[in-house]
């Protein structure tokens, strides 16, 4: 709200207009106030329709045609944000009460004390400015919430909820989104010769741009995985495609692995993602050895290495995002990789689904009342006993 503030004065007394202009001349000259005049309620409504930028109304109560109390009822239909100050005879408490009950912001009494009127007008305008600020802030918040819910829908729509089943393995994936949308995702791909592809990723940043970046990563990954097969080559291609148009310097940590059920070999390439954990049937755990990769989208022409391990029957591979290991408790401690391994070693032989439940329960119990600040995601793969 910027001066001059436009004030609509409604009064049937012809003397008021010159008097008002004369007494408020300094404020008019300073560019503080601007006045428009109407002589009854009907004229005032016409005036409001013609001047959309009226900031407040100063209105008499007793007028021929439409009186001030009726006008008060009509104003919100034209503009619910305009405030009205009523002018009434001294001691006319009944009308003043009615006016206040009908939503008048304040009142002054006749004969008008112009000093008091100026204070009242300023107070009303200040209130209006604050009110409009509050409305603008609310609109912005609504827009942000809409954007976040769009992002969340994009994110949830791409995560598989049904997983391939086989005698050779079990798979279960789960994500709990933070209130502010992040960009975690996982994917499971059926490949030729009974092989299965497993991906887990975390996009930097939040909101719609991150969700769109995640969408393109996922689409590119699917295409490359089916076309190229070898995880190192897949990451190299996806990285180059992502990097081409990436002014915003977003990036995604992505681990892609292919499991071959015929020999138990897991071949994988790690683009800057947290090292997955393997839990063995005896409760021991190992980390998937690093492959020296960089997060995708930032380093053009980088060649991603790949590596292989054999998953023994009964081994469980847990892919997770940093929402798990960096979950915090009230003391500001992180859940941490050690705790994750410890929790997993206590029940090494559950189903993939059980394993995910154990992780999510442990993280929730650890965090207690501390709000979740990042997506928590796990993709668990278990090679059957035999």
């Amino acid at each position: 709200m910027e001066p001059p503030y436009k004030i609509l004065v409604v009064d049937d007394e012809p003397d008021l207009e010159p008097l008002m202009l004369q007494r408020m001349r300094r404020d008019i000259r300073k560019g503080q106030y601007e006045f428009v005049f109407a002589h009854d309620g009907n004229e005032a409504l016409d005036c409001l329709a013609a001047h959309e930028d009226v900031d407040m109304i100063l209105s008499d109560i007793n007028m021929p045609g439409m009186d001030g109390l009726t006008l008060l009822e009509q104003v919100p239909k034209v503009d619910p944000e305009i405030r009205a100050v009523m002018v009434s005879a001294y001691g006319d408490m009944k009308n003043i009460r009615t006016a206040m009950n009908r939503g008048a912001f304040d009142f002054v009494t006749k004969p008008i004390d112009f000093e008091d009127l100026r204070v009242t007008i300023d107070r009303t305008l200040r209130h209006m400015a604050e009110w409009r600020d509050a409305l603008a802030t609310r609109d912005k918040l609504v827009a942000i919430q809409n954007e976040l819910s769009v992002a969340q829908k994009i994110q949830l729509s791409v995560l598989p909820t049904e997983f391939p089943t086989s005698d050779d393995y079990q798979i279960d994936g789960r994500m709990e989104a933070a209130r502010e949308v992040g960009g975690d995702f996982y994917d499971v791909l059926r490949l030729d010769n009974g092989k299965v592809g497993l991906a887990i990723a975390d996009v930097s940043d939040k909101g719609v741009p991150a969700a769109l970046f995640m969408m393109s990563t996922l689409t590119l990954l699917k295409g490359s995985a089916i076309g190229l097969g070898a995880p190192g080559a897949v990451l190299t291609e996806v990285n180059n495609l992502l990097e081409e148009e990436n002014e915003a310097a977003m990036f995604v940590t992505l681990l892609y692995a292919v499991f071959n059920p015929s020999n138990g070999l897991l071949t994988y390439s790690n683009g800057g993602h947290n090292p997955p954990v393997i839990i063995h049937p005896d409760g021991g755990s190992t980390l998937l050895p690093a492959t020296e990769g960089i997060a995708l989208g930032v380093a053009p022409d980088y060649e991603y290495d790949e590596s292989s391990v054999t998953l023994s029957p009964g081994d469980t591979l847990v892919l997770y995002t940093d929402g798990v290991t960096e979950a915090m408790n009230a003391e500001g401690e992180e859940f941490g990789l050690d705790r994750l391994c410890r929790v997993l070693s206590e029940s090494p032989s559950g189903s993939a689904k059980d394993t995910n439940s154990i992780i999510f329960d442990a993280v929730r119990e650890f965090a207690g009342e501390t709000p979740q600040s990042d997506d928590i995601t796990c993709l668990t793969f278990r090679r059957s006993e035999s």
Partner: protein
Amino acid sequence: MVTNEQENGATTWTVADTKNLTIEGERSSGTLIAKASGRIDGSNAREFQDALETFLEGESSSLVLDLENLSYISSAGLRVILLVSKKLQKSSAQFGVCSLSVSISEVFQISGFDKIIKTHNTRADALSAING
């Protein structure tokens, strides 16, 4: 930038002090040094970016980002470091980070950022690498 204080003859500024993060700036023989203390995550990455951009505004100097007192950095924070690095690269200025704690160093290693951002053990190492 808020304060001006004299410390061993060097001028330091408080560039930003907000939401668990303080950025202090100083200049050492033509190279700007920004020291980030606290934590950088999704809730203050925007402020971190604004602070560094304000700090670098109108400058063509090289920059050292001292992370000695940084306890945590999320991917949103890494993204800002990457943006700054790209920007400086365009203007042919040098950039490096120094004094990473064990946990911050791990984040750089896991994400592979240590391969695209120059990291140095100490501020002196970083300065001598930049100034030749």
